[in-house]
């Protein structure tokens, strides 16, 4: 079974600064997907960024980028030019790419990091 670990329960960053959220995972699979989701107080999970394990290039989405280290099983999220609206709970998640597996479609989430943005 896959596991996802987020070792930072809380982080804070000054507005306009950069912050990095950590995530490690454990899997025996070679092909999979990794995600970062944002959950504001509204409770809706919003996809921030996604990485396919077979791609060596790190994914980027505007101010959000990842540092994907496959050998180390590490998947950190960097938020540049932090904004007040970035304040939320951030979850790292894993999904197998093996579509033949009955459980392949489910996401396995970490325990989350609460990000506070200071004005």
């Amino acid at each position: 079974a896959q596991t996802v670990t987020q070792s930072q329960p809380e982080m804070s960053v000054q507005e306009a600064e950069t912050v990095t959220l950590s995530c490690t995972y454990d899997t025996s699979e070679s092909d999979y997907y990794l995600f970062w989701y944002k959950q504001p107080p509204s409770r809706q999970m919003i996809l921030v960024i996604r990485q396919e394990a077979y791609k060596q290039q790190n994914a980027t989405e505007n101010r959000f980028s990842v540092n994907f280290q496959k050998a180390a099983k590490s998947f950190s999220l960097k938020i540049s030019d932090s904004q007040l609206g970035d304040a939320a709970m951030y979850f790292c998640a894993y999904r197998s790419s093996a579509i033949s597996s009955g459980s392949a479609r489910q996401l396995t989430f970490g325990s989350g990091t609460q990000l506070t943005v200071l004005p």
Partner: protein
Amino acid sequence: GAGVSQSPRYKVAKRGQDVALRCDPISGHVSLFWYQQALGQGPEFLTYFQNEAQLDKSGLPSDRFFAERPEGSVSTLKIQRTQQEDSAVYLCASTSGASSVSPLHFGNGTRLTVT
């Protein structure tokens, strides 16, 4: 609809009562998931539907939990004889395809409190 809709938004139940939580996925979405999110934790998988077929129910914590999606659209998660440990946010998510690459769209969840 514009997004995944869940109702009710909040539900308070006395221990032992039965509850039913509704999920209205995005129109045309084939796949539907239910997750349980305890306070301060990440969501945990409960069950998965592809159209009306429940393909994976390995995450349901006990036989008190039952989910259905009879016409392949709206889904209901039912919890019988609720216990305090059932208190959590229940999230529903849908996606347009059956493959792993389709992005998930989540609803706002139902917060269940069992007293």
